[in-house]
């Protein structure tokens, strides 16, 4: 055999230019460990080398923002000396390889990002994407991911209160698993990942270090292929009990005032956490990795530095507190070991006992070079936009279509998944999973906290700019539907390979669309994560920016859900009713067509509709609110009926193709209901804010009846009880 040897740096994913740059910085060639350190910190996953310039487009400031992007998580003020800490992160590749552990450790990682800021985690959400659930492999991934989220989150005692699931063939082998965690903290308890104070000590606490997950982060920065199937050992195994101990112990140590800086060991393990902490503080760091407690014998310095063993934290503290901190961790049965110190020379120095292992300027590690990948509008974009509905036959029996849509995995109830999550522990959950937004009380205050996670992969594929804007608008609308005002958002940007110009175009356009919506609705981006290389054998997933959003309700006793409440209540549409067949679930599921222009979104109009909805909720004028989304007005009304176990009788507001009016999708339109006596006030309010509001019928009875405008007869007639059976039973029927 005379095979050409690939140099180590190339195997580790560095480019030729990057390697030259490293040699230039060091004034010499890096050794093996140093090369590994550069490779992980300059990878897209840690260093955001491709996405950074694009992410600068996001607005990140606002009156509530206490901490924007760049820390372990973002922070917004919620008044009363309290703040909300939140972030969302992807764990797509690990979940594709080993769904249970991949999802479980995804939850573990994001929870650590929250409590490392000093916050008590109070809620989890998730956004998931899978292929067609009739495929057994997809069901294996789906059930494994759900069980993993449940297995980890339930053990921690953090309620999983919401999220979304979407199925599409493009996610068949590369599911998306985006986990969000939200914590609450008093302002004076906020901690950050700063390695400050020359002479302060660096401590590693929690689980021992093993060989698991080495290269997890370069793994996340490449496409999945048959080879990656064989890399199973790279996936880490989570220990939620250990994490629970870590949460309690770390919060106790922080509360006692012993912590100068703290960060979890996530992607690229000890390497990224220590370098980032030193980088933020402009300090240097010296570590002796022979002191790191190990789970396995014979680990090399390289392995110790890059291990992604879970449930570990890095602490910086003043020397006089070491013993007290050790005692505190011992109370929780945890190891805490000093492994180094903060230095003032800006150098990242690693020793293994007396042997020097690495010596690199911190700045060089944390300020990775930036790429400006080429971008190109994909061929499909204009072609699919031009699609017209003329060739699609209008259905004869719309009731039958609605039956099928309610059973569509994307519209059907997701109870099969979320009833596996403990959604109630901590006694804050006022509205749990399955609603537009989850609602939590904030104990000791009259306030409520609304949370949601949203994205629309199909819209983003057909129009990344509008799709990105709609992800933000819809998340905000979901919060507004319960009556909450959005405070800030976190995002997970899931795309294919940035090295493909068409993919990078999708990415850039989506971020631009999101940014436009953020500005129009005054919602800053406070944290986030980019996941590229979501591809299998060269095929990218549908571009999927997911938005996690938090909002505040001043008085939690005044909230509404989507459920119709009482017979006789008036049902109205708030916002402009302008459905379109393009890009919708009806077209995809019933006709197998994914094409057409996405619904139009007027951000000014959106803003007014949302403000109006929030006001109507807060003033107690409406009893329910639910936005028209997948499956259009018919699906929205069906969901309101199912949630309220109450029928409705409505007449369609306009004429035209009946499938378009019933199932066509739109933005900025909310189904609301109110007591008849409140209707004049509701209409006045809407008119005063320049928002369309049109009564379409009333709640009551045990069937959903939808009549055509101008005597076109009954188009839909369904018993609510039967609808509920179909809608609730659909996902479970795959198993």
């Amino acid at each position, binding site marked *: 055999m005379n095979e050409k040897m690939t140099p180590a740096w190339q195997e580790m994913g560095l480019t030729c230019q990057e390697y030259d740059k490293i040699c230039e910085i060091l004034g010499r060639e890096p050794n093996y460990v140093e090369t590994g350190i550069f490779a992980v910190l300059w990878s897209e996953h840690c260093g955001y080398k491709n996405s950074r310039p694009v992410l600068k487009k996001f607005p990140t400031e606002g009156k509530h923002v206490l901490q924007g992007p760049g820390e372990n998580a973002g922070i917004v003020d919620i008044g009363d000396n309290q703040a909300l800490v939140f972030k969302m992160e992807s764990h797509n590749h690990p979940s594709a390889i080993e769904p249970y552990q991949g999802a479980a450790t995804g939850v573990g990682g994001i929870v650590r990002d929250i409590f490392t800021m000093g916050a008590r985690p109070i809620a989890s959400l998730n956004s998931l994407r899978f292929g067609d659930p009739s495929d057994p492999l997809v069901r294996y991934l789906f059930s494994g991911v759900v069980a993993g989220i449940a*297995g980890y989150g339930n*053990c921690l005692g953090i309620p999983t209160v919401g999220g979304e699931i979407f199925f599409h063939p493009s996610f068949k082998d590369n599911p998306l698993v985006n986990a969000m965690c939200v914590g609450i903290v008093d302002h004076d308890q906020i901690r950050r990942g700063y390695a400050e104070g020359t002479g302060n000590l660096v401590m590693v606490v929690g689980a021992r270090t093993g060989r698991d997950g080495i290269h997890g982060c370069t793994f996340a920065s490449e496409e999945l292929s048959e080879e990656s199937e064989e890399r199973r050992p790279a996936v880490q195994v989570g220990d939620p009990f250990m994490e629970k*101990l870590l949460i309690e112990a770390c919060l106790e140590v922080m509360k006692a005032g012993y912590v100068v800086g703290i960060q979890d060991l996530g992607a690229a393990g000890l390497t990224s956490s220590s370098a980032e902490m030193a980088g933020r503080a402009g300090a240097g760091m010296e570590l002796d990795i022979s002191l790191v407690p190990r789970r396995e014998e014979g680990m090399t310095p390289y392995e110790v530095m890059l291990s992604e063993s879970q449930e570990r934290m890095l602490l910086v503290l003043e020397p006089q507190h070491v013993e007290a901190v050790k005692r505190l961790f011992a109370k929780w049965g945890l190891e805490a070991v000093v492994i180094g110190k903060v230095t003032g020379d800006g150098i990242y120095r690693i020793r293994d006992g007396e042997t020097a292992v690495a010596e690199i300027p911190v700045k060089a590690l944390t300020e990775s070079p930036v790429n400006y990948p080429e971008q190109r509008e994909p061929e499909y974009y204009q072609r699919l936009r031009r699609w017209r509905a003329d060739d699609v036959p209008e259905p004869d029996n719309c009731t039958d279509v609605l039956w099928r849509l309610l059973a569509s995995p994307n519209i059907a109830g997701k109870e099969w998944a979320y009833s*596996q999550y*403990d959604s109630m*522990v901590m*006694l804050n959950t006022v509205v749990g999973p399955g609603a537009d937004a989850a609602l939590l*009380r904030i104990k000791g205050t009259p306030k409520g906290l609304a949370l949601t996670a949203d994205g629309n992969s199909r819209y983003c594929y057909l129009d990344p700019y509008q799709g990105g804007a709609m992800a933000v608008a819809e998340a905000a609308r979901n919060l507004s539907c319960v009556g909450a005002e959005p405070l800030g958002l976190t995002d997970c940007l899931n795309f294919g390979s940035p090295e493909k110009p068409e993919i990078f175009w999708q990415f850039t356009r989506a971020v631009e669309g999101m940014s436009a919506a953020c500005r129009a609705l005054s919602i800053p981006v406070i944290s986030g994560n980019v996941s590229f290389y979501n591809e299998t054998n060269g095929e990218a997933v549908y571009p999927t920016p997911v938005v996690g959003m938090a909002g505040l309700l001043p008085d939690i006793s005044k909230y509404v859900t989507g459920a119709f409440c009482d017979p006789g209540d008036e049902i109205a549409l708030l916002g402009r009713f302008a459905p379109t067949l393009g890009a919708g679930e009806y077209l995809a599921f019933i006709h197998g067509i994914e094409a057409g222009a996405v619904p139009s979104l007027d951000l000014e109009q959106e803003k007014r509709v949302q403000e109006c909805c929030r006001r109507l909720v807060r003033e107690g004028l409406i009893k329910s609110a639910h936005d028209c989304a997948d499956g259009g007005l018919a699906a929205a009304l069906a969901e309101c009926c199912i949630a309220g176990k109450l029928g409705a009788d409505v007449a369609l507001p306009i004429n035209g193709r009946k499938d378009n009016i019933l199932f066509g999708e739109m933005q900025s339109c909310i189904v609301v209901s109110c007591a008849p006596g409140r209707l004049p006030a509701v209409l006045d309010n809407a008119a005063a804010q320049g928002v369309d509001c049109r009564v379409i019928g009333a709640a009551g009875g045990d069937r959903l009846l939808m009549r055509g405008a101008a005597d076109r007869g009954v188009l839909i007639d369904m018993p609510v009880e039967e609808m509920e059976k179909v809608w609730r039973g659909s996902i479970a029927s795959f198993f």
Partner: protein
Amino acid sequence: MKFGVVVFPGSNCDADCYHVIDQVLEHPVTYIWHQEKKLSGVDCVIIPGGFSYGDYLRTGAIARFAPVMDEVIRFAERGGLILGICNGFQILLEAGLLPGAVLRNESLQFRCHDVFLRVENAATPFTNRYRQGEVIRFPIAHGEGNYYADPDSIKQMDENGQIVFRYCLENGESAAQANPNGAVGNIAGVCNKNGNIMGLMPHPERCCEEILGNTDGILLFSSLLQWWGFPDQKRVTA
């Protein structure tokens, strides 16, 4: 009446139980750390839900050997009131303070949702404010709540009134589809022969406040007060 909530490192409903006693019931309550060897003079011990020591071997198996459990067992022998909820119930079963054992849910899935329960014995210290046969709604949240005891034991327990709650339909009927985990005889909660120890899989502490949408659980806690001699509970909302 003074309550103590036992805290294992993996307990995660400890703060919830504490909150209900302190904020809703408005009675004194204290945490009892699993390493402690004293119960600090409490009148009722609550063993809360969670994953005690990770529960990797069997739920509650290791917890029952915790230092605090010796004292809990002595307290039980003296007739002290002990309430085990979810993981707390599992620990009481492992400790032999209650008869039977739990297996994994028949679905093999963790389940979190509301269930309906029929009060089978309204004469215990834990249920005296309910009506015999009353149907109530409690949430469950467990992966291993599939109660099992051999047929002879079940028969005996039945005769002794030790079966306190059974899963049922909203109208009170026993039915397989009302059983969330496969428990034998739809059993959701049992007590010892003496009646001073009760364990149940559902979570009464999760349904004690209006804002959370359900107050069916508060009568369980006020039953304890009634038993202890506080007949006029201002918050009783029967």
